[in-house]
């Protein structure tokens, strides 16, 4: 089921082509941990998370951010079957990682903010709305296998 219009699909691919997945991933995850400090509960092994600069500069945060955003990026190639694409990751997040799906919504919204910061005026309301649909779809897909 396609949930993006052709125009929205165009906005998403066009912008995503210019995204530095490693940099944006690290920044989005870092900001999640700074803005919503309770999310640090999943990352106790990451070392120094004691201040915004410690978090943003933390190499484990950057590496993990890259991992997460690469998976997200992969999902963008399969917008017609997000649930299928993220089925295994969904099971992992439920059964092994025990992550409350609310966190997927939080991260999705932080990612939107980071994209706005990077792209400025180009991240206009139409492009923004397309990405809100995408992050909601991904969050939904990641929560789909929870039980």
């Amino acid at each position, binding site marked *: 089921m396609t949930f993006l219009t052709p125009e929205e699909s165009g906005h998403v691919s066009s912008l995503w082509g210019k995204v530095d997945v490693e940099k944006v991933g690290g920044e989005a995850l*870092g*900001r999640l941990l*700074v*803005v919503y400090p309770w999310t640090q509960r999943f990352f106790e092994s990451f070392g120094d998370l004691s201040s*915004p600069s410690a*978090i*943003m500069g933390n190499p484990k945060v950057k590496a993990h951010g890259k991992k997460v955003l690469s998976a997200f990026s992969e999902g963008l190639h399969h917008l017609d079957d997000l649930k299928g694409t993220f089925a295994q990751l969904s099971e992992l997040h439920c059964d092994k990682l025990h992550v409350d799906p609310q966190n997927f919504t939080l991260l999705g*919204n932080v990612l*939107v*903010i*980071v994209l*706005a*910061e*990077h*792209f*400025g*005026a180009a*991240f206009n*309301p*139409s492009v*923004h*709305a397309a990405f*809100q649909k995408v992050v909601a779809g991904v969050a939904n897909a990641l929560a789909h296998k929870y039980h």
Partner: protein
Amino acid sequence: MVLSAADKNNIKAAWNAIGSHAGDHGAEALERMFHSFPTTKTYFSHFDLSHGSTQIKGHGKKVADALGNAVNHLDDIPTALSALSDLHAHELRVDPVNFRFLSHCLLVTLASHHPGEFTPAVHASLDKFFSTVSTVLTSKYR
């Protein structure tokens, strides 16, 4: 949730940097919200919601002015916004979920126009500020 001294400094500095653009940013945040979260339009069936609408501009300025007032009274936001809180509780009755949508769109707008100032720490402080304002505006709902 409490606004620390550092948060208050961040919020004031950010609002200073925004300066006279506050009204425009308010309008843009509303427009973004109507696009991304179409259910929010149900509260504005009496508005022209097209891009550049005078009503959206006017309402954006209203929202920005109220936020500016809160910035000037960070030590007692409930008192500063008491009348607005009554209005939302008894007349407007906007479902609480919608404050989060507008807060998010305000953050997106500010990030896109002021990337230099929008550091992670400032982002956190502004998120807390909007959350505090939202709580105050829904505090008399029941």
